C-alpha cells in the first residue's frame, strides 16, 4: 500500500520509532478492547461510533 520510495517510508518508520510510537506497550490491548466494545453494538455499514451522552449536550448547544 505504501506509496513513494521505500527509503522515504523507512525514514518515516524510523522517525515514528524514535518518537516513541513503538516504545509504548499495552496499547494493543486497549485498542482491541475498544474495538470489542464497538462490535458488541449492532453496526450497520461498517463504520461504527457512538457517543451517547454527547447527544444530549449537542442538542443543548445546537438549540441556541
Amino acid at each position: 500500500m505504501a506509496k513513494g520510495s521505500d527509503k522515504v517510508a523507512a525514514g518515516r518508520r524510523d522517525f515514528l520509532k524514535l518518537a516513541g510510537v513503538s516504545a509504548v506497550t499495552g496499547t494493543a490491548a486497549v485498542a482491541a478492547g475498544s474495538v470489542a466494545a464497538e462490535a458488541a453494538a449492532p453496526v450497520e455499514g461498517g463504520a461504527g461510533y457512538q457517543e451517547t451522552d454527547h447527544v444530549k449536550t449537542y442538542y443543548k448547544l445546537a438549540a441556541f
Partner: protein
Amino acid sequence: MGEAKLALPVSEEDVLRANLYRLLAATLRAGPSRQDLGMFADMHGDDTPIGQAVSAITRVAAKSSPEEVSREFHDLFIGVGRGELVPYGSYYLTGFLHEKPLARLRNDMSRLGIERRDDVAEPEDHIAALCEMMAGLIVGDFGEALDLEEQKKFFQAHIASWAKHFFTDLEGARSSVFYACIGQLGAAFMDVEDQAFLMV
C-alpha cells in the same frame, strides 16, 4: 503484535499509530470502565513525549475509580448546559456547530465509504469520531487501508487544524485529572503525526 487478520501490509508502526488513535477515541467517547482503567494501568511508555504521557495515564489510571473519571468526563464534556470543552472540529474552527468544516468532513467520509451509525445523532466531527476514523483508515476498517498520502490529506483537512489545540485545552482544563494525561498524549501524538506526515 496482533492484527494478524489483516492481509494488507500495514507496517507495525502504523498499527501502533492506529492503537493510539483508538485509545484516544475510546476515552473521549465515554468515561472508561473499571476494566478499561485496568488495561490503561498496564501500559508502559519510554521517555519520549508520547511515552511520558502514556506513563502518566498509567499512574493516574491505577489510582482512579471509574466513578471519579466518569464525573470528570461529565464535567469536561457534558456539564450543566454545556461542559468545559466542546470537542467538535466545527466548533473549534468557527465557534459554531454544523459549519463548513463538518460539511467538508461529510464529503470526505462519503468518498471514503465511512458512514455514521443510524443511532448517533451528533455531528461526525467529534474528536473521538475523528480519531476512530483515522484508526480505521490506517488499518483498513472501511475497506482497503488508506495509503499514507491519502491519510495525510484526511489528517490535514480534518484534524491538524484544531486537534492539537483541543488536546492542549484538555490538558489544562480545570476539571482534568485523568483527562489531563489524555490531553498530554493527544497533543504529543498530534505533533508526531504532523512531523511524520511531512515525510510523506
